[in-house]
């Protein structure tokens, strides 16, 4: 189906680094190939190469030959290739640009110039196959993350391409969403579609794939069966192996932050219902739960971004209302999911200086200490936008920590990150905790939450359904059954070496 011979590619002809180096790859009909690699290893580039965006849409220099279903991709346009190779992009918001789901699925069919009855019939068939008939008249913007992803797959599947390429289909999804995508992929595989799936969350798809490809700096490091790939995945830190926890301090300090029976509604829909919880001084606490449970809405109450309609939030015994953002930020810092939401300076150094200038109380050596802790020295003169995903996250967390808040909140820090970064981050959080910071992690990544947190608060449907030690909660049948928790992607014994 796909034959790449001696591919060299770089986005910029002047750059000395090739994004893909002498890549050879043959993919046969019906294979299910899982493509892994650190961020920046050339995975997305490979996807663009397969559907003709390279060389037709993106500039850059391409050497070698790409052949898809026996045809050279240079001789075809991207539009010709759409019926051969379907690409599902990483960013579903960019992929879904129509006003309703049925138009979304029909768009490709209209492009091909099919007649109206034919289009209707194919929309119906595609939506039935993926069980999304009930969504057809909805706007893609109103869908949940998992639904968006399935619609994105449907929009590409409708023209029935023999090859489908998916770029990180599991990004942002919780266990429930990931499970549905996994089933959809298996279903496509059974019907004989050739699948190329690029994914950081290796654990979730590892058992299903028939073949595993590991890229490292633009070269194929491994190509073989998923079983054989396992040791290499671990060795390359593509599957995170979390650091051992040595500090066994089980005595939690005094209450730092207290949430008292808060309720909050967004457009009349209740998101938080009479929710109470507390954060103890010096602990690492994880707020876990499925997407849409109200986790992010909850932490936005911590620093007054949102105000509860009922109830109170107290930080060290005082209400958080009516304080200036700079004041609050020097006590409670929140780093949200997308680091790009923060960057507005031309260098990393200036970016860090923003918080430093705003807060006069921070001790003099702290900035230097922070730079060392986050390994930022070599990045200082670079533009924050040009960094890798992991580096961006590091800068983003450091730029919040620069004001030395007592409480650090991280909202979904693991999304879109590779295994190596997850290990680094877990390590970093334990170090920060040892230095006396209190940390709250908001996440649906249970493996990460298990490896870092000492206490979990499980949020489901706007309520706290359980609080306690992670290991016990993770096994709680009731929580699993109600969907408040899911099974970890890897068995914990696989990748966490703990010494309590």
């Amino acid at each position: 189906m796909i034959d790449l011979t001696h591919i060299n590619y770089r986005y910029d002809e002047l750059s000395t680094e090739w994004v893909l180096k002498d890549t050879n790859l043959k993919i046969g009909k019906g294979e299910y190939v899982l493509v892994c690699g650190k961020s920046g290893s050339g995975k997305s580039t490979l996807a663009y190469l397969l559907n003709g965006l390279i060389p037709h849409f993106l500039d850059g220099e391409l050497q070698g030959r790409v052949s898809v279903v026996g045809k050279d991709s240079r001789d075809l346009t991207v539009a010709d290739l759409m019926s051969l190779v379907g690409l599902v992009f990483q960013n579903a918001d960019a992929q879904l640009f129509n006003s309703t789901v049925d138009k979304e699925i029909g768009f490709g069919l209209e492009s091909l110039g099919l007649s109206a009855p034919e289009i209707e019939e194919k929309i119906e068939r595609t939506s039935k196959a993926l069980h999304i008939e009930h969504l057809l008249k909805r706007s893609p913007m109103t869908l949940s993350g998992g639904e968006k992803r399935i619609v994105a797959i449907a929009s590409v599947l409708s023209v029935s391409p023999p090859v489908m390429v998916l770029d990180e289909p599991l990004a942002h999804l919780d266990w429930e969403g990931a499970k549905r995508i996994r089933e959809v992929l298996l279903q496509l595989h059974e019907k004989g579609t050739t699948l190329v799936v690029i994914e950081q969350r290796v654990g979730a798809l590892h058992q299903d794939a028939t073949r595993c490809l590991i890229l490292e700096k633009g070269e194929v490091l491994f190509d073989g069966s998923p079983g054989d790939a396992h040791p290499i995945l671990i060795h390359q830190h593509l599957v995170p192996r979390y650091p051992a926890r040595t500090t066994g301090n089980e005595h939690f300090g005094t209450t730092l932050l207290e949430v008292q029976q808060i309720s909050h509604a967004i457009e009349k829909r209740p998101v938080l219902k009479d929710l109470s919880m507390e954060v103890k001084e010096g602990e690492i606490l994880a707020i876990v739960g499925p997407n849409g449970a109200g986790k992010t809405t909850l932490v936005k109450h911590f620093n007054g971004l949102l105000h509860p309609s009922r109830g109170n939030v107290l930080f060290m015994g005082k209400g958080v209302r009516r304080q200036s953002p700079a004041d609050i930020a020097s006590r409670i810092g929140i780093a949200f999911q997308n680091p790009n939401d923060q960057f507005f300076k031309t260098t990393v150094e200036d970016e860090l200086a923003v918080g430093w200038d705003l807060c006069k109380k921070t001790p003099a050596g702290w900035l230097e200490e922070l730079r060392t802790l986050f390994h930022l020295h070599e990045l200082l003169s670079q533009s924050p936008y040009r960094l890798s995903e992991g580096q961006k996250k590091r800068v983003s967390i450091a730029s919040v920590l620069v004001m030395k808040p007592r409480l650090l909140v991280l909202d979904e820090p693991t999304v879109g990150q590779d295994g190596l970064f997850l290990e680094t981050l877990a390590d970093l959080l334990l170090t920060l905790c040892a230095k006396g910071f209190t940390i709250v992690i908001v996440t649906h990544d249970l493996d990460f939450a298990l490896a870092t947190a000492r206490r979990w608060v499980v949020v489901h449907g706007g309520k706290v359904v359980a609080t306690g030690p992670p290991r016990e909660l993770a096994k709680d049948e009731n929580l699993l059954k109600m969907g408040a928790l899911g099974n970890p992607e890897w068995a914990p014994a696989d990748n966490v070496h703990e010494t309590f």
Partner: protein
Amino acid sequence: MGIAAVLLTRNTFPLAVEMVLLLGGLLTLKMLRPLVRVLKLILPLVGLVFVIALISFAWETALVLALRLFNLFTLSFVFFQALDPEELGDGLRKMGLPYEFSFILTTSMRYVPLIGMRIRLIADAQRSRGIDLRPRLRNVPRFMALLMPLLVQAFILAEQLAMAMESRGFARKGRSFRRGYRIPLHEYGLMFLALCLLATFVIWERG
């Protein structure tokens, strides 16, 4: 159809007060609540126009200008609330506009809420690191912190969107359409009625 009414306001003299009453009546039907939210943003602007006109001209002119502006805003609000962008696009295509242009129009309107959401996320992220973005005069220089991430992300989104469109055959020749768009008879009737109203109003107002 709203356009005819928008044209109306071009002729407002102090009579515009009546227009406001008229609109008020129309809005109490169902759309008052979302309007109030939008008005919060618009009223300072209207106030500013009023003050400037008051200083430079007479109070009558100022009142007329402010009312006219207010009516225009309200009407365009109603227009965009009531209209499905794709219907507008279909209509324009019917009038002979190439598909690419009507597509750009409808798609850009679809991304407005997404951009709005992004702005809120960026503002939250920046406030959480201590950057004061509350609408105060001394915070104005800090709005770079809002603008820069937004611009960069808009460019990234535009590029990804272009790639996604390309991959799904946007540029391909010989596109077909699922549904033909026809202007129904009663809409012609409404258009005629609106024109009549407009003419009556103009004649009445000019005496």
